[in-house]
């Protein structure tokens, strides 16, 4: 006792001095005082002096209120602290004399009204909203701070994507606080920033979700399907609001939209109210340690109605149930790390990046031109030769780096599929486990948006039409849970994205039947599987028996095919009945540079994208024929291919009119082959594509322009466009 008294007396002497120096605005001073009080409370508790510890806490709570600005007259508050401290010193002296002090302490507590914590809370609430109102008046509105809102939109959407991934991880591991934190944090941030930007609806919603998550964080609220569903719905709602905001910004028209926010906020609040339920369950655990028994006890005691207990138990069961399904999915993703990791990037406008890549393309070409111009000189001048080589190396390195700057991992696009698969499988009553590999594979930023729709389409197809219902799978002797695999990897200068399922596979007979019905083919005889499967890429082709809510509706794989054509990619379909389907999307590494075959026709240079080129040759005179109704044809290894004369389509004088004197390049598009007549093959080159600009945008048969190594301009041929053009026999001037 004596040791304790001496220690506390010493502490209080210091405290008294610190309090005398205290001024209402001195936050740091308050920090010192609060720390000192903690010491006092600590040693008192340790010594078993509960009433002294309480007195310390009482003084501390006054100081806390002062710090939080909850006291209207701060000077008075400080005086009260002083009073408390001198009272403490007095009761210590009394204690030395053996007198009890608890009564005086109790009186002080009442005097301060400290036990009344509820009162202080509501007071705080009042001042807070007042603050916000005050702030609101001088806040910038959308028009003034467009740039900020724009950056908020981008950043918030990014965060929402992360939230989604983490919520799915949470479904899997409901107790993982780190994951809850990783969901909580971005909501908190979105709330803070939307508050600044006067986006009050988003602000309110984020606030309610945050409160809800805080319940989960403090373990007052059970993480179950209802909670994660609600959070996901909230994510969707905020996304919708942000997209609406974006639209308003783009169009400049402010349109009020009804998102059903009030109803949703109600739902959130109702969910928060479940806290009570959780507390009951907890008590039950304490009482008996076992859910079922505890329930009985509670019912016996009349604390809880029976249905409530049943409901709670069910929820507990649910918790351990669906989690397993998503198990592999989460592992495949390494989700927890994703959300917690902070990225360290500089954000650059993609337009700037595109411009830079463009300019680097020019640099590469200028360097090549320079090399050609002075090659004669360089062969005589060793120094010039070395420097030129150095320049070439540096330029190509710059090109490589600048291209890589636009490359981002495909991870985010893949991750969006997790949610999709989850929602689709629930809707269709199927069980699907999603496996992903190669998410770190990098892809041109400009392609990310382009591949999203085709990918969604194919994933939908797989879940909706590919993977069978659990009972069907069971009957086939397959595991009830279907597997959908997403794979990305680099192969031969291409990016390959593989979507494979272990579902029913494509039905060859059904496809042929449908194709005949639609007049796409006359009969399916002699067709390879590959040819049959590629029929589903025809417009309006769908083999699903039932048009479901999710896919079907007559929009089929042709959409995917068209999107891929646009990116100069290709599609391969492999399928085995009852074993599943694999679709391979092959994409170029980047949209900005293509590998091209340069050809000359007359005085013109054309570039044919290497992906479309099958072969080139000089045909024999005997192999060139004219078929009635079909025009000129070239026979190559027993197959007849139509001949396209560029000089007729584009109106110029070629060096050779006869194919057997010139060269034909066999090109392929949509599984069809044709020959293009050219005078000469010049070579292969990597080409930076330039758009032809507004005026020439609609010229058929041209995909763009490029500056060639010799400084001349070359036009890039658009092979599918050329096919259409040659069939229409229209001339372009």
């Amino acid at each position, binding site marked *: 006792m004596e040791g304790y008294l001496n220690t506390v007396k010493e502490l209080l002497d210091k405290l008294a001095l610190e309090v005398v120096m205290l001024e209402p605005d001195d*936050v740091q001073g308050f920090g010192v005082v609060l720390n000192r009080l903690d010491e006092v409370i600590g040693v008192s508790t340790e010594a078993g002096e509960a009433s002294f510890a309480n007195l310390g806490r009482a003084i501390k709570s006054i100081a806390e209120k002062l*710090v939080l600005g909850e006291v209207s007259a701060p000077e008075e508050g400080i005086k009260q602290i002083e009073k408390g401290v001198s009272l403490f010193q007095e009761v210590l002296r009394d204690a030395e004399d053996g007198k009890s002090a608890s009564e005086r302490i109790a009186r002080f507590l009442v005097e301060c009204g400290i036990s009344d914590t509820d009162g202080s809370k509501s007071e705080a609430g009042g001042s807070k909203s007042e603050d*916000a109102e005050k702030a609101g008046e*001088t806040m910038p509105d959308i028009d003034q701070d467009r740039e900020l809102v724009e950056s908020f939109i981008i950043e918030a959407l990014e965060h929402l994507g992360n939230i989604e991934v983490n919520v799915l991880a949470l479904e899997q591991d409901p107790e993982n606080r780190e994951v809850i934190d990783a969901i909580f944090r971005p909501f908190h*941030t979105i*709330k803070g*920033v939307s508050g600044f930007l006067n986006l009050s609806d988003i602000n309110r919603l984020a606030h309610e979700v945050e409160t809800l998550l805080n319940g989960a964080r403090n373990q007052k609220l059970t993480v179950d399907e209802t909670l994660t569903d609600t959070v996901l719905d909230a994510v969707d709602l905020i996304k919708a609001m942000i997209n609406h905001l974006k639209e308003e910004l783009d169009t400049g028209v402010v349109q009020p939209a009804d998102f059903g926010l009030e109803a949703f906020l109600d739902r959130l609040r109702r969910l928060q109210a479940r806290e009570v339920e959780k507390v009951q369950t907890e008590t039950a655990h304490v009482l008996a340690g076992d859910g079922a028994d505890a329930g009985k006890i509670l019912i016996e005691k009349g604390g809880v109605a029976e249905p409530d207990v049943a409901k709670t138990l069910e929820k507990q069961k649910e918790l351990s149930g669906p989690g397993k399904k998503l198990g592999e999915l989460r592992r495949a993703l390494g989700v927890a790390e994703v959300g917690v990791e902070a990225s360290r990037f500089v954000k650059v406008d993609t337009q700037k990046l595109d411009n830079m890549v463009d300019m680097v393309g020019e640099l590469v070409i200028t360097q090549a031109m320079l090399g050609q111009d002075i090659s004669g000189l360089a062969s005589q001048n060793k120094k010039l030769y070395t420097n030129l080589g150095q320049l070439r190396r540096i330029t190509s390195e710059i090109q490589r780096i600048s291209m890589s700057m636009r490359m981002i991992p495909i991870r985010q696009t893949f991750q969006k599929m997790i949610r999709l698969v989850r929602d689709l499988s629930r809707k269709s009553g199927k069980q699907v486990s999603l496996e992903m590999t190669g998410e770190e594979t990098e892809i041109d930023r400009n392609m990310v948006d382009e591949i999203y729709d085709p990918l969604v389409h194919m994933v939908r197809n797989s879940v909706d039409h590919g993977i069978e219902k659990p009972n069907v799978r069971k009957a086939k002797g397959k595991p009830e849970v279907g597997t959908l695999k997403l794979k990305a990897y680099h192969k031969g200068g291409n990016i390959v994205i593989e979507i494979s399922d272990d579902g029913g596979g494509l039905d060859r007979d059904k496809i042929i039947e449908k194709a005949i019905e639609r007049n796409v083919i006359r009969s399916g005889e002699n067709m390879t599987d590959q040819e049959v499967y590629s029929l589903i890429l025809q417009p309006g082709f769908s083999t699903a028996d039932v048009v479901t809510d999710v896919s079907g509706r007559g929009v089929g794989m042709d959409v995917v095919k068209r999107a891929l054509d646009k990116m100069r990619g290709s599609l391969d379909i492999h399928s085995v009945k009852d074993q599943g389907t694999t679709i391979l999307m092959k994409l170029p590494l980047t949209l900005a540079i293509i590998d091209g075959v340069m050809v000359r026709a007359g005085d013109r240079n054309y570039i044919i994208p290497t992906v479309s080129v099958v072969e080139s040759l000089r045909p024999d005179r005997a192999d060139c024929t004219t078929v009635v109704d079909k025009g000129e044809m070239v026979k190559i290894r027993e197959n007849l291919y139509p001949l396209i004369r560029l000089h007729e389509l584009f109106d110029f004088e070629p060096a050779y009119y006869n194919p057997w004197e010139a060269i034909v390049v066999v090109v392929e598009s949509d599984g069809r082959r044709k020959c293009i007549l050219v005078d000469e093959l010049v070579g292969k080159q990597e080409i930076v594509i330039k758009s032809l600009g507004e005026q020439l945008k609609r010229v058929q048969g041209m995909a763009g322009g490029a500056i060639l190594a010799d400084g001349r301009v070359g036009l890039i041929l658009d092979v599918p466009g050329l096919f259409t053009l040659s069939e229409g026999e229209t001339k372009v001037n």
Partner: protein
Amino acid sequence: MDLSMKILVVDDFATMRRIVKNVLRQIGFTNIVEADDGSTALGVLKKDKIDLIISDWNMPKVNGLELLKAVRGDESTKNLPFIMVTAEAQKDSVVQAVQAGVSNYVVKPFTAEALKEKLEKVFSK
């Protein structure tokens, strides 16, 4: 208050950093550097001479409180003015920050005047 002082703004949300910078410019400050996380901020502190830190509480990896503790724990920065930004007057976080030696705190959303007032209090001592 010296308007040419070097201020370090710490927040993981880029938009928020821009907002804080805008507010600081409104007050008249021009010398502002940024960090996207507590750990980055510590790196900046090692390199640059910073006169004031304005940090968000809520950050991944090293949060505002951890940053504050690290700053106060280092002999060279222990007296550096440090303003904590919180989303609302959450009692626990504010008290924790105060006990860890924060110079002052502001609650989001805040105006230039509100921040200026807090800064004046910090620098009047």
